[in-house]
């Protein structure tokens, strides 16, 4: 049995205004129907005018996916009735999409790379939202109507649910790197539909379409469920019915939304209100020239340039701001693995705990902390404390260290004073040491650190402690 999966991904573009009018495209949290006008309400007599920024963002995404950009594309009307579709049709692109024949390379868990072909990328407008009330009433909010979308359609090149998830993750990463989509599956700014068929050896299976997968996990789970379902049907010598399914994440199963017989005829035809879209080479070149380094290229470069392990690279390059932070820090403090360790163990944890979207310590301050540790000015534990404090208050590490008196004690006199005190307080431990139990050194060192509020330089303390134990 061979599994074949193709994905259709809708990505909302982060333009300031909608695709065919100048209403704000920000709909999340806005009061219902606040961001509407005659155009996006589909009022009689209104006409669409294409937002150039939406085209630019679509081209950015398409070029990042290695697509060809035809000189000419056009807009079509996709006709269907739905209460939150105000014109009774959606403006989309049918047979002449903005971009074709691209590919996206994904890295599989075994370390190999797989090229997944992209069939097309096209522009379209989003529909509004229906809100169903408990009393059976439905309310309509058209703030989302007319928000620009791109639909990215892959060829059926994915051969497992896991690959599908990896594809989605990498696609999201690219769209976020480009700044064209926020990539939020839960909020629906990135949506994924899948076509999947399980094919018995030497035979062709039947394709089903799955919708409503609202997380990466849902993508993988829904497809896994469908592989098992189709395999069981095939094993029982039955045939899989062609249908559109929806993923029920509460019950962890796919459910039939509509059968093949109910398939809609969208009666696409060219939208006479819009002129064909012509993209010249100059525009294409301008976008290509401004293209940022994409995640895959960055990962490859980091491995080579910084010698970091795959795990570190993968996490630190996941989000562009984090990756950029790393690179800025490394410029100031050129020990990549050390920077990586501190970022992974401290910064990303703090970031997660704070629910913030940005790292609140400027990278030069973070580098400064690492330098202070390196030079022995503070010890590692104090370093953690300083980072945490700097993250919370935004103060410079120097200020924190001096205000809190956190500077490491390297003054031998002070350390020796503490050691003498500790040894005199712990005669049993001294006796044990003399009897050959070297393990007590650790215990005693801990006592010294305690006496110095952890500020004693640990290396120096240990050496001086052993010296004094021997002398005592």
């Amino acid at each position, binding site marked *: 049995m061979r599994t074949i999966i193709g994905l259709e991904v809708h990505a909302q573009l982060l333009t300031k205004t909608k695709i065919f009018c100048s209403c704000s495209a920000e709909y999340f949290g806005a*009061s*219902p*129907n*606040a*961001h*509407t*006008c*005659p155009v996006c*309400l*589909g*009022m*009689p*007599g*209104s*006409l*669409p*005018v*294409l937002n150039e920024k939406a085209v630019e963002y679509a081209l950015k995404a398409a070029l990042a996916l290695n697509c060809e950009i035809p000189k000419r594309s056009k807009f079509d*009307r996709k*006709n269907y*009735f739905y*209460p939150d579709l*105000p*014109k*009774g*049709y959606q403006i989309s692109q049918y047979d002449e999409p903005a971009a074709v024949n691209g590919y996206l390379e994904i890295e599989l868990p075994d370390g190999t790379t797989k090229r997944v072909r992209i069939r097309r990328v096209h522009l379209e407008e989003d529909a509004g939202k*229906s*809100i*169903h009330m408990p009393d*059976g*009433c*439905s*309310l*309509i*909010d*058209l703030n989302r109507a007319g928000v620009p979308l791109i639909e990215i359609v892959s060829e059926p090149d994915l051969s497992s649910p896991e690959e599908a998830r990896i594809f989605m993750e990498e696609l999201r990463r690219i769209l976020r790197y480009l700044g064209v989509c926020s990539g939020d599956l839960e909020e629906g700014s990135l949506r994924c539909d899948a076509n999947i068929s399980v094919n018995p050896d030497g035979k062709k299976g039947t394709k089903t379409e799955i919708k409503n997968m609202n997380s990466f996990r849902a993508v993988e789970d829904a497809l896994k469920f469908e592989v098992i379902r189709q395999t069981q049907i095939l094993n029982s010598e039955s045939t899989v019915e062609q249908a559109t399914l929806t993923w029920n994440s509460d019950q962890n199963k796919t459910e039939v939304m509509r059968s093949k017989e109910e398939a809609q*005829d969208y*009666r*696409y*035809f060219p*939208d*006479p*209100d*819009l*002129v064909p879209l012509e993209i010249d080479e100059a525009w294409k070149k301008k976008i290509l020239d401004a293209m940022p380094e994409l995640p895959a290229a960055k990962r490859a470069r980091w491995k080579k340039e910084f010698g970091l392990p795959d795990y570190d690279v993968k996490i630190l390059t996941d989000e562009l701001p984090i990756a950029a932070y790393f690179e800025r820090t490394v410029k100031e403090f050129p020990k990549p693995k050390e920077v990586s360790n501190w970022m992974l163990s401290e910064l990303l944890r703090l970031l997660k705990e704070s629910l913030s979207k940005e790292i609140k310590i400027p990278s030069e301050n973070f580098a400064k902390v690492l330098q202070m540790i390196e030079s022995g000015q503070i010890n590692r534990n104090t370093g953690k404390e300083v980072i945490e404090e700097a993250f919370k208050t935004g103060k410079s590490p120097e200020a924190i260290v001096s205000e809190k008196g956190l500077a490491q004690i390297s003054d031998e006199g002070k350390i020796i004073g503490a050691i003498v005190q500790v040894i005199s307080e712990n005669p049993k431990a001294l006796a044990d040491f003399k009897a050959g139990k070297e393990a007590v050194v650790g215990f005693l060192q801990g006592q010294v650190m305690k006496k110095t509020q952890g500020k004693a330089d640990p290396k120096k303390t240990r050496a001086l402690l052993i010296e004094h134990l021997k002398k005592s």
Partner: protein
Amino acid sequence: MTRTKTCRGGGTADALASGASGLNAREGSNPSPGTISPANEVSLLRLHEKTLHELLALLENREIQVSEIIADLYAAIIEKDQTVNAYLSLAHKEDLIKQAQANAHLPLRGIPATIKDNISTIGFKTTCASKFLEKFEPVFDATVIKRLRAAGATILGKTNLDEFAMGSSTENSGFFTTRNPRDPERVPGGSSGGSAAAVAANEAIFALGSDTGGSIRQPAALCGVVGLKPTYGRVSRFGLVAFASSLDQIGPLTKDVHDCALVLNLIDGHDAHDSTSVNQSALDYSKDLNLGVNRLKLGLPKEYVKALRGEALRCVETWVKTFKDMGVETLDVSLPHTDYAIPVYYILASSEASANLARFDGVRYSQRASDENVETMFSESRDKGFGAEVKRRIMIGTYALSSGYYDAYYTKAQKVRGLIKQDFDRAFQQVDAIIGPTSPTPAFKIGEKSDDPIAMYLSDVYTVPINLAGIPSISIPGGIVDGLPFGLQIIGDQFQESKILRVAYAYEQASN
């Protein structure tokens, strides 16, 4: 099952619900312009009968006041519109006078315009003569309305039409049929029948209509006035309730050719709100009217005259002779794909209409027949809201776009549309303009063709090809057939409005 209602959460949608004042849209077939004080009578000056350019001169010389024009217009409307039924709604007379007086410093000095009721106009309902939009008050002005107002025009009222501009007689109006002022037993043509009748009955100084397959020119011909369909893209469609977006154009209906040029001056020009608006700099179309037509070449398409008999044919002979006397040569030309224009038009226009009218679904606007569930809301609202002709065209269009039929109908029709355009391109290599009848017959009797859609469709056989080709064309009074006005159509190449206006003006001067 889901009940559906629109959200009243704020924003523009709310404005839909708010009432606009000063309106008295008539419903049903009993016209009662209740906002007009009945004491009015037409003055001795009979200013409502004057042309726009005459009134502008009178106002400029301070011989009259704009309020006198308005008074005469309302008096004429009271007198005649009970018979003609041109208007669907009218402004308050006193309000209009105040607005007009405030516009004294602007080029149009407050002179009122009359608008077909499928052009979005703040302060009026925009019903498209459809039950569906019986209570619809638009929240924005069409670009043409903005331009008229900016030039100092006021809006007198909105005129009747075939529902959503689909028809050639105004018999398809969801409210009532407009009558031809030349003979009240007859139709005024359509779909801009209300605008043409209002101008012909001197119930308007000038009017705007829309022309998708002849809807300005055919009623102009049948009512004996001047009507022009501009080059596609010359006049912004923003605010025109779409019937067939690739064919629709707004244009003037006026008492003479000079006025036609003046009104086109006011409404043309590029509009950033309409992607199909062409970026041609605005021209002064009245400037060249007097240049004359000496040495111009006109074409007479044999396909446009072959079916004409009797008085209609004699009109054509008169046209040729009149032009000849002015030094204009008339050549025979051929537009070989003319016969395909009607079927091509009904496929393409209906296809576009089927999508354009999908927004009338019972969710918004006036008409919601049922909200038992979403499907019945859609189907019953549309069943009750639309008239028979609109439904017929939605069915035709939906069929033509359906999978399995699309290539045979829509794609094929687009190809033939290209051939029809080519016919004109070839003809314009030989001649400066093409002349012919606007409509095969003068005004027909009310009810005569209403049971025979094909016969009705054929009354647009000479106007439809022009829309398919996207070129400009004007209809002017061209003689009398059966005691009724017969239209002379003058067709130009793309953006050649100035030239066809010149030809039209010369004929008008010679025939007066």
